[in-house]
Protein backbone atom coordinates (compact mmCIF):
# COMPACT_ATOMS: atom_id res chain seq x y z
CA UNK A 1 0.00 0.00 0.00
CA UNK A 2 1.59 3.29 -1.07
CA UNK A 3 1.52 6.19 1.33
CA UNK A 4 1.33 9.91 0.81
CA UNK A 5 4.46 11.03 -0.99
CA UNK A 6 5.95 13.97 -2.83
CA UNK A 7 4.39 12.80 -6.08
CA UNK A 8 0.96 13.25 -4.54
CA UNK A 9 1.88 16.65 -3.21
CA UNK A 10 3.05 17.67 -6.66
CA UNK A 11 -0.24 16.48 -8.12
CA UNK A 12 -2.14 18.51 -5.54
CA UNK A 13 -0.12 21.63 -6.28
CA UNK A 14 -0.72 21.27 -10.01
CA UNK A 15 -4.42 20.91 -9.28
CA UNK A 16 -4.23 24.00 -7.09
CA UNK A 17 -3.08 25.94 -10.14
CA UNK A 18 -6.28 24.88 -11.89
CA UNK A 19 -8.25 26.04 -8.88
CA UNK A 20 -6.60 29.44 -9.12
CA UNK A 21 -7.10 29.59 -12.89
CA UNK A 22 -10.76 28.69 -12.55
CA UNK A 23 -11.19 31.31 -9.82
CA UNK A 24 -9.67 33.99 -12.03
CA UNK A 25 -11.88 33.01 -14.96
CA UNK A 26 -14.94 33.06 -12.70
CA UNK A 27 -14.02 36.39 -11.17
CA UNK A 28 -13.24 38.17 -14.44
CA UNK A 29 -16.22 36.75 -16.32
CA UNK A 30 -18.55 37.07 -13.36
CA UNK A 31 -17.32 40.60 -12.76
CA UNK A 32 -18.11 41.68 -16.32
CA UNK A 33 -21.57 40.09 -16.35
CA UNK A 34 -22.23 41.16 -12.78
CA UNK A 35 -21.37 44.77 -13.54
CA UNK A 36 -23.85 44.87 -16.41
CA UNK A 37 -26.52 43.22 -14.24
CA UNK A 38 -25.82 45.67 -11.40
CA UNK A 39 -26.31 48.59 -13.79
CA UNK A 40 -29.49 47.01 -15.14
CA UNK A 41 -30.69 46.56 -11.57
CA UNK A 42 -30.61 50.34 -10.96
CA UNK A 43 -31.62 51.38 -14.46
CA UNK A 44 -34.60 53.66 -15.07
CA UNK A 45 -36.19 51.11 -17.36
CA UNK A 46 -38.63 48.96 -15.42
CA UNK A 47 -38.18 45.96 -17.72
CA UNK A 48 -34.42 45.92 -17.23
CA UNK A 49 -34.79 46.29 -13.48
CA UNK A 50 -37.21 43.39 -13.25
CA UNK A 51 -35.12 41.19 -15.54
CA UNK A 52 -31.99 41.84 -13.46
CA UNK A 53 -33.84 41.17 -10.21
CA UNK A 54 -35.21 37.89 -11.55
CA UNK A 55 -31.74 36.88 -12.72
CA UNK A 56 -30.19 37.63 -9.33
CA UNK A 57 -32.96 35.82 -7.46
CA UNK A 58 -32.63 32.79 -9.74
CA UNK A 59 -28.88 32.57 -9.28
CA UNK A 60 -28.98 33.17 -5.54
CA UNK A 61 -31.90 30.80 -5.02
CA UNK A 62 -30.40 27.69 -6.57
CA UNK A 63 -27.31 25.88 -5.31
CA UNK A 64 -24.18 26.14 -7.42
CA UNK A 65 -24.10 22.36 -7.60
CA UNK A 66 -27.45 22.23 -9.43
CA UNK A 67 -26.37 25.11 -11.66
CA UNK A 68 -23.24 23.20 -12.66
CA UNK A 69 -25.17 19.99 -13.35
CA UNK A 70 -27.80 21.83 -15.37
CA UNK A 71 -25.18 23.60 -17.49
CA UNK A 72 -23.06 20.53 -18.00
CA UNK A 73 -25.94 18.35 -19.10
CA UNK A 74 -27.83 21.21 -20.74
CA UNK A 75 -24.99 21.96 -23.13
CA UNK A 76 -24.65 18.26 -23.88
CA UNK A 77 -28.34 18.30 -24.74
CA UNK A 78 -27.68 21.01 -27.31
CA UNK A 79 -25.41 18.61 -29.13
CA UNK A 80 -21.95 19.49 -27.85
CA UNK A 81 -21.32 16.17 -26.18
CA UNK A 82 -17.55 16.43 -25.95
CA UNK A 83 -17.61 19.60 -23.95
CA UNK A 84 -14.47 20.01 -21.87
CA UNK A 85 -15.37 20.19 -18.17
CA UNK A 86 -13.35 23.41 -17.95
CA UNK A 87 -15.93 25.24 -20.08
CA UNK A 88 -18.89 23.91 -18.12
CA UNK A 89 -17.21 24.65 -14.82
CA UNK A 90 -16.26 28.19 -15.72
CA UNK A 91 -19.68 28.90 -17.24
CA UNK A 92 -21.38 27.76 -14.03
CA UNK A 93 -19.02 29.73 -11.81
CA UNK A 94 -19.34 32.84 -13.98
CA UNK A 95 -23.13 32.76 -13.70
CA UNK A 96 -22.90 32.12 -9.98
CA UNK A 97 -20.45 34.92 -9.24
CA UNK A 98 -22.21 37.39 -11.55
CA UNK A 99 -25.41 36.95 -9.53
CA UNK A 100 -23.69 37.67 -6.24
CA UNK A 101 -21.32 40.38 -7.47
CA UNK A 102 -24.23 42.21 -9.11
CA UNK A 103 -26.05 42.36 -5.79
CA UNK A 104 -22.94 43.40 -3.86
CA UNK A 105 -22.13 46.16 -6.33
CA UNK A 106 -25.73 47.32 -6.53
CA UNK A 107 -25.58 47.76 -2.77
CA UNK A 108 -22.36 49.74 -3.08
CA UNK A 109 -23.78 52.03 -5.77
CA UNK A 110 -26.86 52.55 -3.63
CA UNK A 111 -24.78 53.47 -0.62
CA UNK A 112 -23.23 56.45 -2.38
CA UNK A 113 -25.07 59.30 -0.63
CA UNK A 114 -28.12 60.65 -2.48
CA UNK A 115 -26.70 64.17 -2.28
CA UNK A 116 -23.90 63.14 -4.63
CA UNK A 117 -26.45 62.16 -7.30
CA UNK A 118 -28.29 65.43 -6.81
CA UNK A 119 -25.09 67.48 -6.93
CA UNK A 120 -24.11 65.79 -10.19
CA UNK A 121 -27.51 66.66 -11.58
CA UNK A 122 -27.16 70.28 -10.48
CA UNK A 123 -23.87 70.49 -12.35
CA UNK A 124 -25.80 69.45 -15.45
CA UNK A 125 -23.73 66.33 -16.02
CA UNK A 126 -25.20 63.82 -18.41
CA UNK A 127 -26.29 60.43 -17.06
CA UNK A 128 -23.12 58.86 -18.40
CA UNK A 129 -20.87 61.52 -16.86
CA UNK A 130 -22.70 61.32 -13.57
CA UNK A 131 -22.21 57.55 -13.44
CA UNK A 132 -18.58 57.43 -14.62
CA UNK A 133 -17.20 60.55 -12.97
CA UNK A 134 -19.16 60.86 -9.75
CA UNK A 135 -20.92 57.70 -8.63
CA UNK A 136 -18.76 54.80 -9.78
CA UNK A 137 -15.43 56.05 -8.34
CA UNK A 138 -17.05 56.42 -4.93
CA UNK A 139 -18.91 53.13 -5.24
CA UNK A 140 -15.68 51.37 -6.23
CA UNK A 141 -14.09 52.55 -3.00
CA UNK A 142 -16.90 51.07 -0.97
CA UNK A 143 -16.95 47.93 -3.09
CA UNK A 144 -13.30 46.94 -2.84
CA UNK A 145 -13.40 45.16 0.51
CA UNK A 146 -16.58 43.11 -0.06
CA UNK A 147 -15.41 42.21 -3.56
CA UNK A 148 -12.11 40.83 -2.30
CA UNK A 149 -14.11 39.03 0.38
CA UNK A 150 -16.30 37.47 -2.29
CA UNK A 151 -13.19 36.36 -4.15
CA UNK A 152 -12.58 34.03 -1.21
CA UNK A 153 -16.09 32.64 -1.74
CA UNK A 154 -15.29 32.01 -5.41
CA UNK A 155 -12.05 30.18 -4.63
CA UNK A 156 -13.87 27.95 -2.19
CA UNK A 157 -16.74 27.30 -4.57
CA UNK A 158 -14.43 26.15 -7.36
CA UNK A 159 -14.23 22.96 -5.27
CA UNK A 160 -17.70 22.14 -6.61
CA UNK A 161 -16.38 22.03 -10.17
CA UNK A 162 -15.23 18.52 -9.32
CA UNK A 163 -18.80 17.28 -9.87
CA UNK A 164 -18.56 17.85 -13.61
CA UNK A 165 -15.27 15.96 -13.72
CA UNK A 166 -12.94 18.92 -13.63
CA UNK A 167 -9.73 18.00 -11.81
CA UNK A 168 -9.08 20.85 -9.41
CA UNK A 169 -7.81 20.75 -5.86
CA UNK A 170 -10.77 18.98 -4.20
CA UNK A 171 -11.11 16.47 -7.02
CA UNK A 172 -7.36 15.78 -6.94
CA UNK A 173 -7.68 15.13 -3.22
CA UNK A 174 -10.52 12.72 -3.85
CA UNK A 175 -8.52 10.90 -6.54
CA UNK A 176 -5.47 10.51 -4.31
CA UNK A 177 -7.64 9.38 -1.44
CA UNK A 178 -9.18 6.73 -3.68
CA UNK A 179 -5.78 5.32 -4.48
CA UNK A 180 -4.04 5.41 -1.09
CA UNK A 181 -6.96 5.74 1.34
CA UNK A 182 -5.47 8.15 3.83
CA UNK A 183 -8.40 10.55 4.00
CA UNK A 184 -7.22 12.50 7.01
CA UNK A 185 -3.76 13.32 5.63
CA UNK A 186 -4.97 14.00 2.11
CA UNK A 187 -7.90 16.24 2.93
CA UNK A 188 -6.01 18.07 5.64
CA UNK A 189 -3.35 18.95 3.09
CA UNK A 190 -6.04 19.95 0.61
CA UNK A 191 -7.62 22.14 3.29
CA UNK A 192 -4.23 23.66 4.07
CA UNK A 193 -3.67 24.58 0.43
CA UNK A 194 -7.13 26.21 0.27
CA UNK A 195 -6.27 28.02 3.47
CA UNK A 196 -3.01 29.23 1.97
CA UNK A 197 -4.94 30.68 -0.98
CA UNK A 198 -7.88 32.12 0.93
CA UNK A 199 -6.38 33.42 4.14
CA UNK A 200 -4.19 36.13 2.54
CA UNK A 201 -7.20 37.24 0.52
CA UNK A 202 -9.49 37.57 3.52
CA UNK A 203 -6.78 39.31 5.52
CA UNK A 204 -6.35 41.70 2.64
CA UNK A 205 -10.09 42.30 2.52
CA UNK A 206 -10.14 43.00 6.24
CA UNK A 207 -7.27 45.47 6.05
CA UNK A 208 -8.90 47.21 3.07
CA UNK A 209 -12.07 47.52 5.09
CA UNK A 210 -10.22 49.06 7.97
CA UNK A 211 -8.21 51.37 5.75
CA UNK A 212 -11.15 52.67 3.78
CA UNK A 213 -13.24 52.67 6.94
CA UNK A 214 -16.51 52.38 5.08
CA UNK A 215 -18.55 51.42 8.06
CA UNK A 216 -18.31 54.63 10.01
CA UNK A 217 -19.52 57.25 7.59
Amino acid at each position, binding site marked *: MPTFSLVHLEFLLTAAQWTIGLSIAAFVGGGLVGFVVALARISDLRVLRIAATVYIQLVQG*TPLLILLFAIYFGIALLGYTNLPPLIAASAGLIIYSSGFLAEIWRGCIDSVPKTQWQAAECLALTRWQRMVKVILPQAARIATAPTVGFLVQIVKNTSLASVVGFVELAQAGKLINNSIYEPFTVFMIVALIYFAICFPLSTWSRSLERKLNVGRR
Partner: protein
Amino acid sequence: MVRAGSSGLSPSTSRRSATPLLVQVFIIYFGIATLGLHVSANLAAVIALVINVGAYTCEIVRAGIESVHKSQIEAAECLGLSRVQTYWHVVLRPAIERVYPAVTSQYVLLMLASSITSQISAEELTAVANRIQSDTFRAFETYIVTGVLYLLLSLVVRICLWLFGLAVFVRRRKLGTAI
Protein backbone atom coordinates in the same frame (compact mmCIF):
# COMPACT_ATOMS: atom_id res chain seq x y z
CA MET B 1 -25.97 55.68 15.34
CA VAL B 2 -24.35 52.96 13.35
CA ARG B 3 -26.44 51.82 10.43
CA ALA B 4 -27.27 48.19 9.95
CA GLY B 5 -25.63 47.09 6.74
CA SER B 6 -22.45 48.95 7.56
CA SER B 7 -19.01 47.40 7.50
CA GLY B 8 -19.76 44.79 10.11
CA LEU B 9 -22.40 43.20 7.97
CA SER B 10 -20.81 43.38 4.55
CA PRO B 11 -20.29 40.08 2.75
CA SER B 12 -16.58 40.25 3.36
CA THR B 13 -16.99 40.09 7.10
CA SER B 14 -19.91 37.76 7.31
CA ARG B 15 -18.43 35.00 5.17
CA ARG B 16 -15.06 34.17 6.52
CA SER B 17 -13.71 30.71 6.53
CA ALA B 18 -10.77 29.71 4.48
CA THR B 19 -11.64 26.17 3.43
CA PRO B 20 -14.48 24.99 1.18
CA LEU B 21 -17.45 23.25 2.75
CA LEU B 22 -16.85 20.30 0.43
CA VAL B 23 -13.42 19.70 1.95
CA GLN B 24 -14.79 20.17 5.47
CA VAL B 25 -17.46 17.57 4.73
CA PHE B 26 -14.82 15.15 3.43
CA ILE B 27 -12.58 15.67 6.44
CA ILE B 28 -15.41 15.06 8.88
CA TYR B 29 -16.93 12.10 7.06
CA PHE B 30 -13.69 10.26 6.33
CA GLY B 31 -11.92 11.58 9.39
CA ILE B 32 -14.46 10.15 11.80
CA ALA B 33 -14.28 6.87 9.91
CA THR B 34 -10.50 6.67 10.36
CA LEU B 35 -10.96 7.24 14.07
CA GLY B 36 -12.78 3.91 14.03
CA LEU B 37 -16.26 5.26 14.67
CA HIS B 38 -19.04 4.41 12.28
CA VAL B 39 -21.22 7.40 11.43
CA SER B 40 -23.88 7.53 8.78
CA ALA B 41 -23.37 9.96 5.93
CA ASN B 42 -26.39 11.96 7.07
CA LEU B 43 -24.99 12.46 10.57
CA ALA B 44 -21.58 13.46 9.23
CA ALA B 45 -23.31 15.91 6.89
CA VAL B 46 -25.26 17.45 9.76
CA ILE B 47 -22.10 17.76 11.89
CA ALA B 48 -20.24 19.47 9.04
CA LEU B 49 -23.11 21.88 8.36
CA VAL B 50 -23.51 22.70 12.05
CA ILE B 51 -19.82 23.52 12.39
CA ASN B 52 -19.86 25.55 9.19
CA VAL B 53 -22.97 27.61 9.88
CA GLY B 54 -21.97 27.95 13.52
CA ALA B 55 -18.74 29.66 12.51
CA TYR B 56 -20.54 32.01 10.13
CA THR B 57 -23.33 32.91 12.55
CA CYS B 58 -20.74 33.53 15.24
CA GLU B 59 -18.95 36.01 12.97
CA ILE B 60 -22.21 37.75 12.09
CA VAL B 61 -23.36 38.09 15.70
CA ARG B 62 -19.90 39.30 16.71
CA ALA B 63 -20.18 42.03 14.11
CA GLY B 64 -23.58 42.93 15.53
CA ILE B 65 -22.26 43.11 19.09
CA GLU B 66 -19.36 45.27 17.99
CA SER B 67 -21.75 47.63 16.25
CA VAL B 68 -23.46 48.51 19.53
CA HIS B 69 -22.28 51.97 20.40
CA LYS B 70 -20.16 52.52 23.50
CA SER B 71 -22.42 55.37 24.59
CA GLN B 72 -25.33 52.93 24.80
CA ILE B 73 -23.45 50.85 27.34
CA GLU B 74 -22.46 53.96 29.28
CA ALA B 75 -26.08 55.07 29.28
CA ALA B 76 -27.11 51.67 30.64
CA GLU B 77 -24.50 52.05 33.37
CA CYS B 78 -25.85 55.47 34.27
CA LEU B 79 -29.32 53.98 34.58
CA GLY B 80 -27.90 51.55 37.10
CA LEU B 81 -28.47 48.39 35.11
CA SER B 82 -26.49 45.39 36.26
CA ARG B 83 -23.90 43.82 34.00
CA VAL B 84 -26.24 41.00 33.05
CA GLN B 85 -29.10 43.38 32.37
CA THR B 86 -26.87 45.59 30.28
CA TYR B 87 -25.62 42.68 28.31
CA TRP B 88 -29.05 41.23 27.64
CA HIS B 89 -31.18 44.34 27.07
CA VAL B 90 -28.68 46.83 25.66
CA VAL B 91 -26.07 44.76 23.86
CA LEU B 92 -27.27 41.33 22.84
CA ARG B 93 -30.88 41.85 21.85
CA PRO B 94 -30.39 44.96 19.73
CA ALA B 95 -27.29 43.36 18.23
CA ILE B 96 -29.20 40.27 17.16
CA GLU B 97 -32.08 42.37 15.90
CA ARG B 98 -29.66 44.35 13.81
CA VAL B 99 -27.92 41.36 12.24
CA TYR B 100 -31.08 39.32 11.79
CA PRO B 101 -31.28 40.02 8.02
CA ALA B 102 -27.68 38.83 7.63
CA VAL B 103 -28.45 35.71 9.65
CA THR B 104 -31.47 35.09 7.45
CA SER B 105 -29.46 35.13 4.25
CA GLN B 106 -26.81 32.96 5.90
CA TYR B 107 -29.48 30.36 6.67
CA VAL B 108 -30.78 30.44 3.12
CA LEU B 109 -27.20 29.90 1.95
CA LEU B 110 -26.92 27.04 4.44
CA MET B 111 -30.03 25.43 2.95
CA LEU B 112 -28.50 25.73 -0.52
CA ALA B 113 -25.10 24.53 0.70
CA SER B 114 -26.68 21.36 2.07
CA SER B 115 -26.71 20.18 -1.56
CA ILE B 116 -22.94 19.72 -1.21
CA THR B 117 -23.44 16.88 1.25
CA SER B 118 -24.75 14.77 -1.64
CA GLN B 119 -21.06 14.26 -2.38
CA ILE B 120 -20.75 11.90 0.61
CA SER B 121 -24.07 10.33 -0.40
CA ALA B 122 -26.17 11.87 2.34
CA GLU B 123 -29.82 11.39 1.43
CA GLU B 124 -31.03 14.82 0.40
CA LEU B 125 -32.55 16.56 -2.60
CA THR B 126 -29.46 16.65 -4.79
CA ALA B 127 -28.50 13.06 -3.99
CA VAL B 128 -31.99 11.93 -4.97
CA ALA B 129 -31.76 14.00 -8.14
CA ASN B 130 -28.45 12.31 -8.94
CA ARG B 131 -30.06 8.92 -8.50
CA ILE B 132 -33.04 9.79 -10.69
CA GLN B 133 -30.64 11.14 -13.28
CA SER B 134 -28.66 7.93 -13.41
CA ASP B 135 -31.89 5.90 -13.58
CA THR B 136 -33.54 7.85 -16.34
CA PHE B 137 -30.66 9.55 -18.19
CA ARG B 138 -32.85 12.68 -18.34
CA ALA B 139 -30.21 14.78 -16.65
CA PHE B 140 -31.22 18.25 -17.80
CA GLU B 141 -34.89 17.86 -16.90
CA THR B 142 -34.04 16.38 -13.52
CA TYR B 143 -31.72 19.21 -12.54
CA ILE B 144 -34.04 21.93 -13.81
CA VAL B 145 -36.86 20.54 -11.65
CA THR B 146 -34.44 20.24 -8.72
CA GLY B 147 -33.36 23.83 -9.26
CA VAL B 148 -36.98 24.98 -9.15
CA LEU B 149 -37.51 23.00 -5.95
CA TYR B 150 -34.50 24.71 -4.38
CA LEU B 151 -35.86 28.09 -5.46
CA LEU B 152 -39.19 27.34 -3.79
CA LEU B 153 -37.39 26.06 -0.69
CA SER B 154 -35.31 29.20 -0.38
CA LEU B 155 -38.48 31.26 -0.71
CA VAL B 156 -40.14 29.21 2.03
CA VAL B 157 -37.10 29.52 4.31
CA ARG B 158 -37.04 33.27 3.77
CA ILE B 159 -40.74 33.66 4.53
CA CYS B 160 -40.50 31.49 7.65
CA LEU B 161 -37.52 33.42 9.00
CA TRP B 162 -39.23 36.70 8.20
CA LEU B 163 -42.36 35.64 10.09
CA PHE B 164 -40.18 34.43 12.96
CA GLY B 165 -38.46 37.81 13.00
CA LEU B 166 -41.83 39.59 13.08
CA ALA B 167 -42.93 37.48 16.01
CA VAL B 168 -39.72 37.76 18.02
CA PHE B 169 -38.55 41.31 17.44
CA VAL B 170 -41.67 43.12 18.59
CA ARG B 171 -39.79 46.26 19.55
CA ARG B 172 -38.34 46.54 16.09
CA ARG B 173 -41.79 46.19 14.54
CA LYS B 174 -43.05 48.99 16.75
CA LEU B 175 -40.18 51.20 15.65
CA GLY B 176 -41.13 50.45 12.09
CA THR B 177 -37.71 49.26 10.98
CA ALA B 178 -37.76 46.64 8.29
CA ILE B 179 -36.64 43.13 9.10
